[in-house]
């Protein structure tokens, strides 16, 4: 009797205990992993995720950024945005910016990578020089180029020196040329990163490919077209994605070189948002501008994020 009871007890409670222990064994590592992840996740949630979501709410109010009163205005800020001439300028400038600062630095970077990868001496030194602008603070870069573009500055001096004095111009003072002039230092800064990536990709191509192509009588162009370019596919994808994502962030160079002027002609979405919030106290309207540029950046960036998330 006691034996059966014992057996029953064992029979019943045995698995339960074991089950419970297994559960505990499964839960403990999970708790530990959460404890490891928690500090960074909390900071990320509190100072990036939460503010971003809160901004969306603010964009539907007429808040001035200071007073306790926030009136809900529905889509008011967004309809205002559609009719704001400065937003039209800013969108156009952001598009110009995207076009120039994606294509030119990548093309420059590819050309530099191929040149640096050819048989030359002092390769590390040369590579270092070309990457230098990328580590400088953008405000510093903007200040340097603002100084170069001065009416009496070096750009104009060089133009007159090489006999193109007729092209001399107040580059940043003229609303038709200012935004284009600001893209020049951007390209100077951004060519370095694609160069490094392409260089790494080029150095990963086995030399045998070229040798066997040469034996088969392939011309230099054919070698480039059928060996070099296809091997850079992975690098192309990353370089394009990062360059596109970065275009939404344009701010520092504009602030340092023109501060949005002359006459708001060089405003971009980021700077116009800043001016609205922190200079004319239209926090609600400013956040609406931020929401729009963020949605564009996120949509453009999602394929890249997905590809990276898969690898992690």
């Amino acid at each position, binding site marked *: 009797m006691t034996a059966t009871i014992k057996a029953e007890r064992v029979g019943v409670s045995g698995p339960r205990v074991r089950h419970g222990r297994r559960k505990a064994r499964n839960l403990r590592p999970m708790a530990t992993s959460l404890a490891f*992840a928690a*500090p960074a996740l909390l*900071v990320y949630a509190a100072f990036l995720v939460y503010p*971003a979501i809160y901004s969306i709410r603010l964009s539907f109010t007429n808040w001035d950024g200071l007073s306790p009163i926030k009136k809900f205005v529905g889509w008011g800020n967004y309809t205002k945005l559609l009719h704001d001439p400065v937003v039209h300028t800013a969108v156009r400038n952001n598009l110009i910016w995207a076009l120039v600062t994606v294509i030119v630095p990548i093309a420059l970077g590819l050309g530099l990578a191929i040149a640096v990868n050819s048989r030359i001496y002092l390769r590390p030194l040369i590579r270092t020089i070309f990457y*230098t602008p990328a580590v400088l603070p*953008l405000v510093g870069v903007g200040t340097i180029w603002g*100084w170069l573009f001065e009416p009496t500055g070096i750009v104009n001096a060089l133009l007159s020196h090489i006999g193109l004095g007729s092209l001399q111009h107040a580059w940043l003072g003229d609303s038709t040329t200012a935004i284009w002039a600001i893209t020049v230092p951007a390209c100077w800064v951004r060519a370095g990163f694609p160069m490094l990536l392409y260089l790494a990709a080029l150095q990963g191509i086995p030399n045998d490919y070229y040798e066997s192509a040469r034996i088969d009588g392939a011309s230099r162009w054919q070698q480039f077209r059928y060996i070099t370019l296809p091997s850079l596919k992975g690098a192309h994808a990353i370089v394009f994605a990062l360059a596109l994502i970065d275009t939404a962030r344009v701010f520092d160079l504009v602030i340092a070189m023109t501060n949005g002027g002359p006459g708001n002609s060089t405003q971009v979405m980021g700077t116009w948002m800043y001016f609205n919030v922190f200079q004319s106290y239209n926090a609600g309207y400013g956040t609406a501008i931020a929401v729009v540029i*963020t949605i564009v950046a996120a949509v453009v960036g999602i394929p890249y994020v997905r590809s990276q998330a898969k690898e992690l």
Partner: protein
Amino acid sequence: MTAIIAAAPPDVSREDSSRQAMRGRRIRRRAFVGTIVMLVLALLWAMPLLALLLTGVKSVSDFDAHGALSVPQSFTLSNFRSAWGVGQFGTAFINSGLITAVKVPIGVLITSLLSYALAKMRLPFRRTITFALLMGLTIPIFIAIVPIFTMLRSVHLTDNLWGLLLPYLAFGIPFEVLVLASFFRRVPQEIIEAARIDGASELRVFFSVLLPLSLPAIVTVAILDAVATWNELVIALIILNSPSHRTVPLSLLNFQGQFSTNFSGLAAGILIALLPILLVYALLQKWIVSGLTAGALKD
């Protein structure tokens, strides 16, 4: 007959080796010419910085008479002296140095812990968390700055250097996770398991096994993070106000306004402000260059 046959091979090989020597010489000459061309291009590329240097060390009258690109008539440090005084770069260096020195170690530590959980542990909602973290790579900072400003104002951390700390940490996390988690993932699971079986706690595994193995990635991330922190403008611009709290980008922005008509002084000031980052880059460029490519080209 045999003599001819025997004699033939050395002849051919001599011809071959001389041809090879000629080819070697041609390749070397081409490499030399290529190097010269690339050096000239690099010089042109560095021209904006060289122009700064040439202008900074010449007197105002020399600059007015001969322009920026002439060889200085005499070498002067007076521009640097006045720029140093007006720009208050000393204060800016201290501020940027302090925030960088505090932000980078904390940031690297908490992101390493998070990356370990993502890469080597059973973290619940792993996919969602990864995606949410990496989305942080794409969204511009503008979406968060208004609430960040009001949050910091409510705890009196605006116009305070330490107000920058938490937002800087938050915005540094996505890139650091991207590099560190993918690096940790490649550390062989057997090593981690072996340490666990030996009874090491997860913290012990993290500090004594994973971190030493990942030192190159950690150092690279720390350097890149330090450069980004040192150079940051947007958050500093909205949070900081008084001259004594300015970071390097802010002091440059302010300095530019004051020296806009004195080119030699302006050039000297920009050079002073850029000097620390240029020095760091010159010393650590190997880490920076290898880290950037390693972060992006993982396979």
